[in-house]
Structure formats: C-alpha cells, structure tokens
C-alpha cells in the first residue's frame, strides 16, 4: 500500500501544481492548535502559521519519513512558536510546576454530568481555567484531547520525554479538577 505522506511529499518536491496548497490545507488545523495554544494572540498565530509552512516548504527535502508528516509539520510549528515565546521571554510552564506536588485525591464528584454541561457559566469557567494554564500544558492537553495525538506522537512533535508529557497532562487535569470543584463548591 502506498504511503499517502510519500505521495504528497513527492508531489510537492516535484513542484506539482496544487500539491503544497493541499499539504497546507491538510495540516493547517494542527498547526493552528499548536501555535495558538502556545502563543494565544490571534494575529501572531496567523503570522507564525505562515512562517511555519514557509519553513516546511523550504526544508521538506530533509523529511526522512522517521515520523509521520503530521508530526514533522507539528514539530516545525512547535519550534516556530517556541522561538517566538523565547524572544518575548514568555515562560512555558509555571515555576511551581517544577516542585514536588502531592495532590489531594478525591473519590466521587456528586454532581450530574449532563446538567453541569448544560450550565453555560460553568462551561465558561472551565474554558477560562484551561486558558489560564501555562502555554506548554495548554498545548499538550489540546494535542492529546482534541487532536487525539498519542503520547509517542506528542514526543515527536515536542521533543519532550514521554514521562514529562504524562506529568504535564496529569498535573494540569488535576489542577482543572481542583478549580472545577472549587467552583462547584461556591455555587452549591
């Protein structure tokens, strides 16, 4: 069976009409998710997405099929966004994340999922809590939950060890759960 990545990459390298446009259209969603979750500013995100795809075009001849094309493009987008954040001196994680963390683990929740989801204010609170996470965990959660990338695929995109990715997912979901419970406690 033909590898669809190879077909597309060969078409782009052969400068076939519309091939690069298709590559961009296929991967612009992932590129947006990575950059937007790290950078947040929409105008910067648009510019950085463009820069990422120009880099993809320039360096596509170096793609060696060691990962999927999707992961490779994701890695380029991640590198572009990371450089932007470094220039702006925006930290990727909270300093507190580096310390020991002993979460309070609770058993049950005692609320109904569907009626909670129907509460628009609660949903907004949850979205705000996600937005308030530091850039790196916010991006990792989006890649894992929304783009459904596996942890090994996220390793390829970010270059981070699998354990570090798992750690960020675990801690940020715990943090979100604490915020949610605090909110539910307020409204009860």
């Amino acid at each position: 069976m033909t590898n669809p990545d190879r077909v597309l990459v060969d078409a782009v390298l052969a400068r076939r009409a519309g091939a690069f446009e298709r590559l961009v259209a296929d991967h612009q969603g992932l590129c947006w998710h990575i950059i937007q979750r790290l950078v947040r500013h929409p105008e910067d995100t648009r510019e950085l997405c463009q820069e990422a795809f120009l880099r993809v075009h320039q360096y596509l001849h170096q793609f060696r099929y060691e990962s999927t094309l999707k992961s490779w493009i994701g890695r380029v987008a991640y590198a572009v966004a990371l450089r932007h954040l470094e220039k702006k001196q925006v930290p990727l994680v909270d300093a507190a994340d580096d310390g020991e963390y002993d979460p309070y683990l609770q058993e049950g929740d005692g609320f109904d999922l569907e009626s909670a989801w129907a509460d628009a204010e609660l949903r907004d609170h949850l979205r705000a809590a996600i937005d308030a996470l530091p850039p790196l965990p916010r991006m990792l959660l989006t890649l894992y939950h929304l783009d459904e990338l596996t942890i090994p695929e996220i390793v390829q995109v970010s270059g981070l060890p699998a354990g570090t990715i798992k750690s960020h997912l675990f801690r940020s979901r715990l943090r979100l759960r604490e915020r949610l419970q605090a909110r539910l406690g307020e409204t009860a």
Partner: protein
Amino acid sequence: MKTDPIVSPAQQTEWLRQEQAFDAERGAAGTEAPASYRLIARALREPLPVDLPADFATRVARRAETAALLDPRWERRGIAVLLGTLAVLAGAGLLLEGASWLADLQAALPSLPRILNGWTLLLLAGLAAAQLPVRRPLR
C-alpha cells in the same frame, strides 16, 4: 520536573480516572469515570476555531513558490555563472587584444609623470590595502 510522576497507587488511580474520562468522551462504551474529569475532557475536546483566512493555503503556497525562486542557492549559482562568463570573455579579450594592449602600455609608461615612480606606487598600494575590509573570524 520528575519524568514519571505517576508512581504511587493513589496517583495511578487518579491517572486511570483521567484516562477513563478521556475514553468515555471519545465514545468508549461501558467506561466508568468521575463526572468532573468527563466535564474537563469534554471541554478540552471542544473545537478550537481556526481563525485563518479561507484562502490561507493558496496564499502560503504562492508565497512559498516565490520564496523558492529567490532561494539564495539559486542566487549564488547565478552569480557563479555570471563571474564564469566574465572570466571567459576577459580571457578571450586578452588573447585577441593582449599584445596590442601591452604595446600601448609600454608606449605610455615613459610619458607618465615622475610622481608615479616606484615609491609613490608602493605608498598608494599600501593605502589601498589598508582600506580593504578585514574579515573577522566567526565566534
């Protein structure tokens, strides 16, 4: 940060709950998970609007193709071809006209003013060399 934070049985249980919520929101049947984690997983799965222009792919492809035409590798190759052509033309000119140029030069030399004696030429050459850009080593 520790590379694998999920070491204690309590943490493993919590991780399992988080993953069960993720699976349940992806439609896995018969998955038990706390409502709070399911709510979080659901919020995290909400589509993130991609705020790019409708013709983004077309525009980027056009820019990439233009940038490829201006690729510095092609620029360097063009300069090399131009310099090569100039060298060939200069060589051909020297072969065809060299003898007469030399004769003209020899005829002109004795009539040059006395100021252009050997020492003055040496001084001028020294000044010219001092003006040449110095290439500093890269750090």
